[in-house]
């Protein structure tokens, strides 16, 4: 096995991973993982574990992109356009109604969160977003905790072209939901001039994940105004 095969197998063995892909770019290797709709174990968040595995196998500069799927009742999902299928009939019966959409369940034009990566060694935190196929990364100081995640998300949205300079009034962890996911509420001021405070609330696999999601939830409502 070469290093890329070893890496891919190790990544596909991470809980919930359904697809892995690689894109060689001029200055880095993009590693993309698709995850099913499951909650990461708190001590083994998949984005962090994946980043570490990639770092062990690849010496060149890399970016790890995590795409999470959400499950919906099969009836709510349009049948996929089948191109050419060779599948046992029995297997087709077990298809789950899963589709990649944004975290709010809306199909509108919204930035989608790909990954929140914390690098304690370098005190850096990265938020990866995608909008209309364009990916951006926002960075902030990891030791700033929830506010770091908010700042990194704002930076990632600015990378998409937003010219705003909002600041966080607060970012608070409220409680854990029934699935033991962290729930964070965020209040942003100055997203749009003369507009009231924007609030966002979201659950995530970790507090910083939830903070990034709640920031995005607040910003997505204003996307048409700020981009």
């Amino acid at each position, binding site marked *: *096995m*070469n290093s*890329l*095969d070893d890496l*891919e*197998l*190790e990544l*596909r*063995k991470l809980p919930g*991973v*359904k*697809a892995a*892909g*690689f*894109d060689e770019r001029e200055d880095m290797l*993009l590693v*993309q993982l*698709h995850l*099913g709709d499951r909650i990461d174990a708190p*001590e083994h968040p998949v984005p*962090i574990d994946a980043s*570490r595995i990639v*770092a*062990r*196998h*690849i*010496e060149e500069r890399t970016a790890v*992109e995590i*795409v999470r*799927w959400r499950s919906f009742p099969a009836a709510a*999902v349009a049948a*996929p*356009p*089948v*191109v*050419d*299928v*060779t*599948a*046992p009939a029995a*297997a*087709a019966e*077990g*298809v*789950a*109604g*899963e*589709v*990649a959409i944004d975290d709010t369940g809306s199909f509108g034009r919204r930035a989608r969160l790909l990954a929140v990566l914390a690098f*304690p*060694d370098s005190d850096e935190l990265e938020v990866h977003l995608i909008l209309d*196929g364009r990916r951006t990364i926002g960075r902030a100081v990891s030791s700033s905790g929830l506010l770091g995640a908010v700042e990194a998300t704002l930076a990632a949205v600015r990378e998409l072209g937003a010219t705003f300079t909002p600041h966080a009034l607060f970012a608070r962890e409220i409680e854990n939901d029934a699935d033991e996911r962290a729930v964070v509420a965020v209040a942003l001021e100055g997203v749009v001039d003369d507009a009231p405070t924007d609030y966002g609330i979201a659950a995530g696999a970790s507090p910083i994940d939830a903070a990034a999601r709640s920031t995005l939830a607040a910003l997505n409502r204003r996307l048409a105004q700020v981009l």
Partner: protein
Amino acid sequence: MTDPSEELLATIATTDSGIALIYQSLDALVEQFSLEDAAVVLEERQIGRQIFCAGRRPLSQDDDELLVAPPGLYTQPALEHDDFDRSLMLSLCVLALRLDVVRYDAWHDPLTGLYDRRSFIRLLEMAIARSNRYGWQFTLVVLDLDHLKVVNDTEGHPAGDAALRELGDRFRRVLRIGDDAARIGGDEFAMILPNTPPEAVELLMERVRSAEGFDRPCPSFSYGWAQIPGDATEHEELMKIADQRLYEKKAGR
């Protein structure tokens, strides 16, 4: 025209990588039938549903149908060659992936995910052979988790397992590309550290102890080392020297 399934069947028994074989088959399919794209969705017993696209490419927004597709072979445009056995190719791809998973499990410790003893000895022999041939230096570290029996007896085996797993996680976090770590016995670990003088080992062990992101302090451990060139030319002797230094350290406490 050669059937890609037949090629897959011919090489599956001798390949080192089932994943590479799956991609080779998809790429061959694209080339032989002048397709724009090909992908396969597999259901593997241990790691579940897996999607592979020709060229090892990432999924794009146009691949939404693959996300919900049942196991099968998908091509763009539709494949219309009746002489090509798609079911056979699908079955062989599952087998190739299964072999990879089994091979991986055979060489790794299921508790920590590190290499197991057998893999480690093989890696050590290779490292020694390279060192003897090219003069490359490396340090072998043998490491014991302290008081595992006490933890097992007083807090139960799950607590002992958690301590072993955590130490494995810490090694994974701290070790560099090219370093190898293994769990070679109940409470014993070992590492091969290329281009690392023995003086640097304590620094590395300190990084293991102080690694961030863990809820509790690092489990206590002791270690000994041996280096090549210098200490031995065979792996048994090298392990023995590292073990001796480990026990001297423990006895000196």
